[in-house]
């Protein structure tokens, strides 16, 4: 069969999603947060359902009740964590070690839940259990980062991505991963050079004077409830905004670059039953979308969040395509056991970024 390029198409519409979003928010507020698993599932179903490949859409089948259970476990752990580090700060270290130990389990459970509940043409995705490998790439290797001055970082990212891709499957067909560690070092090399130049530039030009001005102005306010007028309130606010703006900008530049390059590298190295993918994200496009989204959200007091999300999804999926050789009709379902959502929810609460 000839290779044909099948584009991913995102068909979500801002106006339609706005309705879903605002109703979700209202219900979350009036149920004191208990509706949020249902809100999350509806939002995911909208995005998955509007992701179309070869005239068929994806679907998300996560059970809100399973997610609620996960939320409650995660919340309980978070409360224990916050209370105990307040009462006895050294427990933070214990929690860190504990997190390092359970991280592989969390990531694996979370990937299983997500894959199992992602459906294309009513065939589920799968994720294989391999806690040993997970432990290596999410606990063992990260420990080496400080001892190698971070030089192991690209290798670490490579191993994590390889782990995530090669344990995934669609029906009975496994994904395979064809990138090498060298490719990841190339992506990070540019970052390293850029980071050095940027760091020096920022420290010399902006950060030092701004920090001093900020200290002078902010200290008067730090803990205090003042009696007199409000000296330099504007100065405090302006420096706060400038500092925030600069750090967001720097962060966004790196984030956009890494997001684009690593995404492209990973997708372009994935194979599924003889089919390949092509991803062509551009860092500058992503940077522009991130920045304009951010400004739009701020200026609209959050009301443009739906527009921003739809816009980002449309761009990302518009750059992704399947290079099909076998066609998409021949995949067969695999029997699977049920998966709980706790792993995913705990991971999200502690801000662990998983997924491809």
């Amino acid at each position: 069969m000839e290779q044909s390029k099948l584009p991913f198409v995102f068909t979500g519409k801002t106006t339609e999603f706005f309705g879903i979003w605002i109703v979700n928010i209202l219900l979350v507020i009036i149920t004191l947060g208990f509706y949020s698993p249902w809100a999350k599932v509806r939002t995911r179903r909208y995005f998955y359902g509007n992701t179309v490949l070869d005239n068929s859409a994806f679907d998300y089948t996560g059970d809100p009740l399973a997610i609620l259970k996960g939320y409650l476990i995660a919340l309980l752990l978070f409360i224990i964590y916050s209370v105990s580090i307040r009462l006895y700060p050294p427990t933070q270290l214990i929690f860190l070690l504990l997190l390092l130990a359970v991280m592989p389990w969390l990531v694996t459970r979370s990937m299983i839940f997500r894959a199992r509940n992602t459906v294309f043409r009513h065939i589920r995705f799968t994720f294989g259990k391999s806690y040993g490998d997970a432990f290596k790439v999410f606990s063992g290797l990260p420990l080496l980062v400080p001892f190698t001055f971070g030089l192991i970082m690209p290798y670490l990212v490579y191993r994590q991505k390889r782990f995530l891709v090669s344990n995934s499957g669609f029906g009975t067909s496994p994904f395979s991963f064809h990138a090498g560690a060298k490719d990841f070092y190339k992506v990070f090399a540019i970052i390293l050079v850029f980071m050095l130049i940027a760091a020096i530039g920022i420290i010399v030009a902006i950060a030092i004077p701004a920090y001093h001005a900020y200290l002078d102005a902010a200290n008067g306010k730090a803990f205090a409830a003042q009696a007199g007028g409000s000296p330099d309130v504007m100065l405090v606010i302006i420096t706060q905004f400038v500092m925030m703006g600069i750090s967001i900008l720097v962060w966004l530049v790196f984030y956009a670059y890494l997001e684009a390059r690593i995404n492209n590298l990973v997708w372009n190295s994935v194979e599924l039953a003889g089919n390949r993918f092509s991803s062509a994200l551009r860092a500058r496009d992503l940077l522009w979308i991130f920045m304009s989204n951010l400004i739009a959200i701020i200026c609209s007091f959050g009301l443009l969040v739906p527009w921003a999300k739809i816009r980002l999804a449309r761009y990302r999926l518009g750059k992704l395509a399947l290079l099909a050789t076998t066609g998409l009709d021949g995949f067969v379902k695999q029997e699977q056991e049920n998966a709980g959502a706790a792993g995913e929810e705990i991971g999200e609460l502690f801000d662990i970024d998983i997924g491809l």
Partner: protein
Amino acid sequence: MIKLPAIYYDGQTSQPTAVELCFDDSGRVRVAGPQLEHSYDIASVKSKPRVGSLPAQFIFPDGAVCEVSDHAGLEDALQLLPKRSFQDIVHKIENNLMAIVVSLVLALGVLFVIIQYGIPFGAKVVAYRIPQEMENSLGQNALEFFDNTLCKPSTLAAAKQRHLEKLFSGALLKMDASPIQLQFRDCGKKIGANAFAIPSGIIIFTDKMVQEAKDDRELLGVLAHEVGHVRNRHIMRQILENSVTGLLLVLLTGDVSSASSFAAAVPTLLVQAKFSRDFETEADNYAKQFLKSQGISPAYLANLLERLSKQQENKASGIIGFLSSHPLTKDRIKNLTH
């Protein structure tokens, strides 16, 4: 009899098949397509709640699924199914413009009530239950922070300090204020004439503030204002309010980990500035009440405020007024003298 065009998936393979879905009057659902023919009892068919304009899904007991896009008769067919989810109502609301507008207004309204009344009320209830001792380490840290970065030991004459300590401790007795610790510091030009209440009941007077006052009664007004902050547990309340508001807005406007969390910081900042204005007014009211009870006119405090604000050429107005953490001095003076 309802007939709908559908895409059929058997749930075993990824092969889609175009079929016709027939709901007949005898309670059976028939799936008919090229080389396939199935018939199910309608009581065994489930549907998944719809989201947006995505196709409806009919799920059959053998794991097969039919997807039906918007079509005349689809709603009627869905009505025939035995069990429907409450999310079908949610779907109706999401697709009704009027209902969306109402939801928007309601969401903003409820959020406003929570931020304006709910959180301050909750923070107040909780703050009064937190023992003052819990603030002690906070207070010591804050004092050390001031001493290390901004302030030097006071340069006021010893006699002046003794005089003020005597004056203030007399006033504190009358206020029946819980243990309050007075500190004098020379905090330079940036902070200028000022006084702060920091956690655990420590009140710092800057030397400039003492020098600026033309009358002891003005300083008593300042003291009473700061005691107002302490008695009303403003610092604890502000810490609680800020963290809860921040958390709420971040949770609502985005995932905790996404870039929109940054965006949430801006409204949070505005709301927090507003909180602190309410506290200033409350502290001013306390000072006013105390001064009056001592037969001192609140105008003394107002005069001091006016002089300070003239000095600082604080031209705050309009947007700056909304951002400012203190109410406009003009408004405060009006409040004190009425």
